[in-house]
């Protein structure tokens, strides 16, 4: 198959070939900011990076991210809401929408939210597939009030 190249005026890409498909590796900063022995910080890659992003997304509150007020699952604030019979379903919809909108790398396979009002806790189990690698990841998180 012939390679295609752009003119100099169109971006000086004459040496590049058009790539039809590329497998991209996900690399993110480890938000724990733990120090490596060489004084650098750790990275997270692939499934770990996406898992960190999903957790980050769900725990971000509304209006927390600058100029993107609808970003986040807002789980932290739900802890302080009154619990009724529809609360779990509503929360699942919120999480589904958040993942759908802001985390295109994760395809949601299973979602279960349990509100535990007696313990002031939210237990959340999310199973998703990494789009790039087809790897299946399970994220279990439990939020509880500290006061």
């Amino acid at each position, binding site marked *: 198959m012939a390679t295609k190249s752009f003119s100099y005026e169109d*971006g*000086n890409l004459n040496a590049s070939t058009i790539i039809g498909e590329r497998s*991209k*590796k*996900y*690399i*993110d*900063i*480890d*938000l724990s900011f733990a120090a490596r022995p060489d004084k650098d910080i750790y*990275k*997270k890659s692939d499934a770990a*990076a996406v898992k*960190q*992003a*999903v957790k*980050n*997304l769900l725990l*971000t509150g509304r209006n927390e*991210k*600058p*100029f*993107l007020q609808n*970003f986040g699952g807002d789980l932290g604030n739900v802890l302080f809401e009154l619990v009724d019979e529809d609360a779990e379903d509503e929360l699942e919809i919120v999480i589904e929408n958040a993942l759908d909108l*802001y*985390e*295109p*790398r994760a395809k949601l396979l299973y979602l279960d939210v349990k509100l535990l009002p007696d313990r002031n806790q939210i237990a959340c189990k999310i199973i998703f597939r990494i789009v790039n690698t087809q790897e299946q990841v399970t994220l279990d998180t439990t939020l509880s009030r500290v006061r």
Partner: protein
Amino acid sequence: MATSIQSTRLDFDNIKNSLKTYFAQQSEFTDYDFEASGLSNILDVLAYNTHYNALTANFALNESFLNTAQLRSSIISHAATLGYEPRSVTTSSTSVSLSLNLAGVSGRPSVITLPAFTEFTSKVGDNTFSFRTLIDYLATDDGTGLYKFLNEEGTEGIPLYEGQKYTKTFYVGEVGERQLYVIPDDTMDTSTATVKVYDTVSSSAFTTYSRLSEAISITSESTLYQIAEAPNGFYELNFGDGVSFGRAPPTGGKITVEYLSTSGTDANGAFLFTPASNISVAGGAYTLAVSTLASSNGGAPKQSIESIRANAPIAFAAQQRLVTAEDYKAIILKRFSAVTDCAAWGGEDNIPANYGNTYVSLVFADGYTEAQKQVVKDNIRNNLTNNLSVISIDTVFSDPVTTYLQLSTTFNFNPALTGTTVKATENSVSNTTKTYFETNLKKFGGTFRRSNLLAEIDNISPAILNSATEIKLQQRFVPTLNVSTSYELVYPVRLAAADDVNVIVETSTFIFNNRICSIKNKLNTTTLQIVNSGAGIEVDNIGSYDPQTGIVSLTGFNPTSITAGVNYLKVTAIPANSSTIVPLRNYILDFDEEPSFANGIVDRQTQTAALSTASSSSSGSSSSGSSGSSGSSY
């Protein structure tokens, strides 16, 4: 390809995208593009920080210049560096005649004093306002027991000013410490302030200080104060230190400031004034009789920031001296809120030339009587021009002359392009014309440009295909009836030369020799004739007009009456150049709606060619039965 971060972009998204562009060129991290990633969160922090700092820097830089500052406090500060004192809220004032009738009262004094700050009340709408005098006034018994209070000039008009009177007392500290005395009142009219300085706290003797901005000369012994608006909108009183601008108040002394805190514009229009209390004379209390000479006016809010922005540099250039025409304009507009517009020109530019004089023309705010206007003019002459102008240059006031424009506007109108009718569009054109005059003209230096007006008319509706307007200038004068008198009318521009088709100069109608007549120029000449309604010539030569100077002269004009129910005659003339009418000196252009009109001509744009209408219609009828080529015959 971006190789570096574009640091000049202030918008958050742009900054973040710049950072992402940087990461796109690196292989270290790849998750910058996903909003939920840790990297994106860090980019948020970086971008927000940059955005915040950039905005702060941008605001700070904007506030650093008079041209771009948005905060009043910044503009006040910039104006202060130019030595400009923005005008405070201005009190509304009026002029009343005050008298007291003590006929029959035994033991009445020969002179009665009306003390300063005597209060009167008046209503504007549902709001009651307090008006008061600022100084003492005296009245003398006329022999019958009638006392009429007279002002400083010995006439009856006693000025009353709206506002509540306040007194602030300050104690003077050490001389070495420069003190600013704060008056926490943002509705203070600084022009009503009276500043008295006492040598000791208990002393009753005082020195009255005057305002620095009105000082004619300054020595170390001058008793001057400066009052300036502070950034928070309040006012600060400042004195010299014995060197810079006059004497410093003595340590251990006392300063009192009396002033009016005023409602400004709201109190304009008050007409009926009632004394708040009676006058005590010879053991009895008597009511003042008040007769209003003019309703209250002149109340104005603080000088707007746009006005300060425009005037501070001009006032700085004037340097408190009246040298150029712009100096007169800047200082008069700054000092006199009664004057809404001002024009000034040298005597050498006047017609006729009058060397050694500066001509000043003033437009006053609505509601000023001739007497009040004269007071303002006297104030300008006595307190301003006599002190600040170049020696040997006198000031001559010249009333504004209004030149009216009559517009005959026609436009082609295609009803298919709009939902409105020709009549409605004609009204829109008339309204646009009125708005054009209100916005651009009716002020000194307001120039009429025909193409600008026509552009606005064309923009009213897509249905207006094109427009044109004919201009006539109109001057008005009040003739003396039944007395043979000569008149001279000066137009601000050159007039059209006489020709054999158009009447260039024409007046409205009047009665002369018991006939309805008007004055017109004889075709092809500049001679003016009185012509009756039957086109008969009553007077063959009543004067002439000069196209070059724009002067229309009437000699021995003696009408019996004027027909239109008014006391003036309109003299219309066609200008030499209708495209631009530039009013010089004291001329102001206005719009005469009555003879002006807008006329729409329906143009459906269906006529494809107008070369031979007759042949095209015959060819159309003849070819109606053939294989359709009605359009091809063109």
